[in-house]
C-alpha cells in the first residue's frame, strides 16, 4: 500500500487501519495525533479507521515538555 506520510511517499504492506499503520512504523499510539486525508482520527478509533491506498497521513507527536 502506498501512503503519503508526513509529506513523504511510503510503501507499507498489510496496513488496513490506523493501528496497523502505526505498528508498522513503530510509532507509540499513546503519544500521537493522526490525520487521514485531513480528518482527525481520535485514538479510540485507531483500530477501526481504515487506511487506503494513496491516502495522505499526518502523524503529529504530542510534545509535552515546557
Amino acid at each position, binding site marked *: 500500500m502506498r501512503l503519503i506520510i*508526513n*509529506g513523504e511517499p511510503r510503501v507499507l504492506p498489510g496496513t488496513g487501519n490506523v493501528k496497523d499503520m502505526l505498528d508498522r512504523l513503530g510509532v507509540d499510539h*499513546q*503519544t500521537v*495525533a493522526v*490525520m487521514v486525508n*485531513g*480528518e*482527525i482520527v*481520535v*485514538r*479510540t478509533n485507531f483500530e477501526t479507521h481504515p487506511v487506503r491506498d494513496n491516502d495522505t497521513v*499526518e502523524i*503529529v*507527536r*504530542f*510534545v*509535552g*515538555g*515546557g
Partner: protein
Amino acid sequence: MVITEKERVRRLVSLPEAKPGWIRRLRQSRVAIVGIGGLGNASALYLAAQGVGHLTLIDPDEVEPHNLGRQILFGPPDVGRPKVEAACRTLRFIAPDISLAAEAAALTDEKQETLLAGHDVIVDGLDNWEARLILNRFSVHHRVPVVFAGAIGYEAQVYVVNGGKPCMQCLFGDDGFVEQSCALLGVLGPVAGMAGTVQAQEVLKLLLNTGDGLQGRIWTYDAFRNVSRVVGFTPRAQCPVCGGKEHEYGR
C-alpha cells in the same frame, strides 16, 4: 541612558507591513505567560524586548540549578528564588518601562479566572497535559487566543487556539497523554528556546494583526533530523470543548 519606546522598536516599525498604531498597540497589550520554564523564559524575553506593555508571569516553582542550561532569564544567584521574581528582575533590566505582575501560583480550575482574566493573549509555558486542558477551555469559553507549545528532546511544536475552533482537544483528543518530562527524556536547551521564541513571534502577530497565524495549524520542528513542518488541522466531530464540526460555537 534613557531609551525611548520609539527607538526600541525602530526596526520593528521599519517592516513593510507596519502601521502607525503598532507601537501604541503593543504598549497597551497585556500578555499572560503560564509557566516560566524553557518556553516561558524565551517568550517573556522577546515580548518584553519588543515593547509589549504588560506581562503577567505565572509559575509556582523556584529556580533550580538544572534550569540554567535553557532558562535564560536566570543566573546562579537566582537559585532558590521564585522563578516569577527572578524573571521579573531580568525583564526590568531589559525593558525598564514594562509593567509586570508576578504570580507564584499554579494554574488550577479554581484560580483560572483570577490569573488569566484581562489579557489579550495567553502563552502556554506549561509542562503537562492537565493544565493545558484548562488553558484550552479558557481560550474557547472566553474567546482569548492561547499560543500553545511544547519542547522535549530535540523536538518542538507551536500551535494557536484563537478563542474558538479548532481547539487543542480537536487535535490531540480527550484522553490525555503519558506525561513526558524534560527530567526523564532530556531537552536540548535552544530547542525549548526556539519554541518559546516562535510563541513570542505568534503573540506579536496576533497583537498586531499581521501575517498568517498558526490557528488550525501546528508548527513542528525536529532538530535531530533538521526537519520542520506546518500541518493543518480542522475541528473534530463532537469535540467536547469547542463543539467541533457539529455546531457553531456560541449557539
